[in-house]
């Protein structure tokens, strides 16, 4: 995988203390990225792709993003339509606020993060089908209803339906992926989703490298 010329694509992962970063970093490296970890905004550098991973609740995550000076950096990055990947909490934080703890979040996407409705089990943990509602190059080579690994109880509910890229059912249907311009957000964990997850990460890195 990666660029056939051998040049690695520079990628920065935002480290705001939200748990396991090893997996996403290794998935990015396997995809041909040169990965840097930013503990505050000054360490973001000038990557081709900015990744915000994370699991857990919104309020402490927003506090840590603010403490690291990340909020204006992320907002500027997305406003300039530069390649961005938000994973799980990193997607939820793009919405306006979270019903989980009432936290005001980044507000890049219109809508709220809401509790999964009618879910037979919560948290929603395990592999589930990600059903695409439209095509996107990040999913090149991946079956239209491939299984990805989820671990969450809340999900973003976009007001603008045209940002929805894929949906998943656990009780009610919820938004599993969004895309707008160079922004991609996924509720599942590609770095924990085996071959298809690695394929998605590789597609995202390649797209960012070509942008």
């Amino acid at each position, binding site marked *: 995988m990666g660029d056939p010329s051998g040049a690695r694509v520079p990628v920065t992962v935002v480290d705001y203390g939200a748990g396991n970063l*090893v*997996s996403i970093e290794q*998935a990015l490296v396997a995809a041909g990225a040169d990965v840097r970890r930013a503990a505050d905004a000054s360490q973001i550098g000038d990557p081709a792709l900015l990744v915000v991973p994370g699991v*857990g609740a919104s309020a402490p995550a927003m506090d840590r993003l603010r403490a690291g000076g990340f909020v204006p950096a992320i907002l500027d990055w997305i406003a300039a339509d530069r390649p961005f990947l938000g994973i799980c909490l990193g997607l939820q934080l793009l919405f306006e606020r979270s019903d989980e703890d009432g936290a005001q979040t980044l507000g890049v996407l219109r809508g709220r993060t809401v509790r999964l409705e009618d879910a037979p*089990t919560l948290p929603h943990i*395990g592999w589930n089908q990600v059903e695409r509602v439209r095509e996107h190059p990040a999913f090149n080579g991946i079956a239209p209803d491939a299984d990805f*690994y989820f*671990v*969450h109880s809340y999900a973003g509910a976009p007001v603008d339906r045209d940002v929805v890229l894929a949906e998943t059912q656990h009780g009610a249907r919820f938004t599993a992926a969004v895309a707008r311009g160079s922004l991609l957000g996924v509720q599942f964990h590609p770095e924990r989703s085996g*071959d298809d997850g690695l394929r998605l990460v590789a597609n995202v890195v390649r797209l960012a490298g070509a942008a």
Partner: protein
Amino acid sequence: MLRRRVIPCLDVANGRVVKGTRFVDLVDEGDPPELAERYAREGADEIVYLDISAAPEGRGTLLDIVERTARRAFIPLTVGGGVRSVEDMRDVLRAGADKVGLNTRAVEDPELVRRCAARFGSQAVVVAIDARRVTPTVTIPSGFEVVVKGGREPAGLDAVAWALRVVDLGAGELLVTSIDRDGTKTGFDTQQLRAISDIVPVPVIASGGAAGPDDFIAAVRDGGADAVLAASIFHRREWSIAAVKAAMAAAGLPVRAVPGAWEAA
């Protein structure tokens, strides 16, 4: 639809996979990351490491194997055994695990479950409940009693009440082991599983007693389990993960296809 998970469990001591009966006569079975990667390739939906190192020096070694595993196996990893504090949990997650399992320590200090969930989220906290059948009493009305310290010591707690309590404290998943069945190859205790899965909202992982694919099917159908864990039948190659999943699919249970299987089909 959410898939029913098949999870191989690796017992790890001092950095090596070991096998033995009830923690005795341990035999070295190889390098944990290497085996984890093999299971991932063969279709495992997650991996569980159970650290049974007797000595605390095993900790650094464990963190090293967690990190090496995260570099090779791109499926979820749970680490149980030896996590005694929020700091221990932080170290294990930072090394590359997605969840930790709390067992005896949760019984000794139930508030640890709350502290870990508050810090890292419920999704990262698996409480392992080892239980055995007893004659129902006022303290153990369900007839399933929690045991600790590898199944050696009764905790005097009702397993169903304990399950509700730890979920209330913030456990995001329960790993329920029948100590009566563990290592016996007589099938999972589906009544014990059902008593717990019916009453908690979180996913329940069945453990203890797997002999073959029919037991996995029963754990889901009769026990209401969301996931099924086994050790020896996979390590001894009595059954492959693919064979277990094929049987579950044939029984109408939703499972994730083994990687590469649908391309080849």
